[in-house]
């Protein structure tokens, strides 16, 4: 029984948790002294990072073109992933094809795609087409298929079947039912999910860049590799601003869509 003032029980639980964490710290051979004693490492690093070298933003073409490339990566990933994912979701939805087996297999396939870490997927594509933004886009497409596939399936299955059923009763075929009943109801959540995924994919695009995927993430990784920390800080500022803008834009548009339609 949960009692706020039972000092014995609370004390015991706290001890258990703290004890476990301490054991984990030991297991991982974490040297806590490093955290407090060697602050001068951090100091040295901060010295090397500041003042940041913002001149790379306007002096060279590097930053602008890599930002554009990253946005393109996210865009293409969301677009193609969305289309293919949508296709999958139609197959996977319960009442569209009336075949339970197909629905289950497709859903399982989508789950499988989601389980595989993007690290591994990007590895496969780097082997296939070499490092660079192309591999990055392909990775994002695959992971988007998984995410949007699931989101879309849920949206479709949550749709109110009454309008579809009434159309069916008037003799409309599957395609007509889709176009006139399912699609219009589905559209707001469709666009909303796309925008949400675009936000996520922008972050993936940046992160994958570090793995050789291209875009501004890659430039960031390069500059850290050669210890140009001042450049790195400038780049990370650009990334932060970019992602904040995209996040706010995405949220704003999603609110408008879900509010109006």
């Amino acid at each position, binding site marked *: 029984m*949960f009692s*706020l003032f039972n000092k014995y029980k609370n004390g015991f639980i706290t001890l258990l*948790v703290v004890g476990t*964490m301490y054991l*984990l*710290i030991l*297991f*991982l*051979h*974490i*040297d*806590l002294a*490093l*955290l407090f004693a*060697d602050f001068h*490492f*951090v100091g040295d*690093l901060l010295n090397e990072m500041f003042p940041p070298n913002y001149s790379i933003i306007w002096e060279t073409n590097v930053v602008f073109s890599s930002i*554009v*490339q990253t946005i*393109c*990566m996210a*865009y*293409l990933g969301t*677009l193609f992933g969305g289309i293919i994912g949508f296709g999958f979701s139609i197959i996977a939805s319960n009442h569209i094809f009336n075949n339970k087996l197909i629905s289950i297999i497709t859903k399982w396939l989508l789950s499988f795609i989601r*389980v*595989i*870490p993007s*690290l*591994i997927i990007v*590895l*496969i*594509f780097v*082997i*296939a*087409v*070499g490092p*660079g*933004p*192309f591999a*990055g*886009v*392909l990775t994002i497409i695959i992971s988007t298929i998984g995410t949007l596939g699931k989101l879309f399936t849920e949206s479709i299955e949550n749709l109110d079947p009454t309008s579809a059923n009434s159309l069916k009763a008037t003799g409309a075929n599957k395609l007509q039912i889709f176009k006139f009943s399912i699609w219009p109801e589905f559209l707001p959540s469709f666009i909303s999910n796309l925008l949400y995924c675009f936000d996520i994919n922008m*972050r993936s695009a*940046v*992160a994958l860049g*570090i793995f050789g995927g*291209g875009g501004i*993430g890659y430039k*960031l*990784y390069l500059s*850290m590799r050669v210890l140009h*920390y001042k450049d790195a800080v400038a780049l*990370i500022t650009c*990334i*932060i601003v*970019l*992602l*904040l803008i995209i*996040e706010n834009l995405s949220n704003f548009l999603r609110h408008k869509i879900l509010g109006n339609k």
Partner: protein
Amino acid sequence: MIKKITRLFIISITILATYFAMKICGFQLNALNKGLLDSIFFIKQMFPPNWDDFKDLWNPALETIALAILGTFLGSILSFIIAIFAASNLSNKWVKQLVRSLISIERSIPELFILLILIAAYGLGSLSAVLALMIGCIGMLAKLFADTIEETPVAVIESLQAAGANKLQIIYFGIIPDIFPKLLSYSLFRFEINIRLSVMLGAIGAGGIGYELDYSFSMLQFHRALSCLIVVLVLIVIIEQISMFIRKKLAIQQL
């Protein structure tokens, strides 16, 4: 009529944008065709996995899990403390705005970058990984926690205030007991994410099974790499299933 023109307009813009984007990203569809065959062939080469290796991979797998647990636990506590300042019913307008902005900024920093900075400061190893995961939690958990805190009915806070309790007491007795299952649920969700991150960060040098994976690849020991891969997949699936199960129970049963 206008609707049709707008629709056509949107579609043509989309096609144009897609074309240019593909150019910018270096799309080469024939390379993809050929390349896919290469990678499938490559994957076939990786089979069968080296069954002996599995016993060596226990320790790294546990390391990865330990990193994720520690990172999530510490990250949750840190995020909660930050969330107190980001909740409109617990802190004043300016502080709340500032803290929420900082949380958004943290959310925009890739965890990989945080790790790289920490490695530059503290070197390779578990400490940097745990700190990276811990700080990475903030962007998501602090926001979710703060939103949850704001859902507390005003009357609960005001009645404790009227009884003379100070802020710390109000938080500990009045707010935390009611939101605890939700906090736990969010933390478990973040734990699922952190396991994946732990693998990824491991590949960059943080240790654990991600490191083994990267190492096997660079040493061209592809069978071992496949073993690592299998361990990663099994790990992720098991953890996610357990986490989803617990979260479902939390949502229904209210513990």
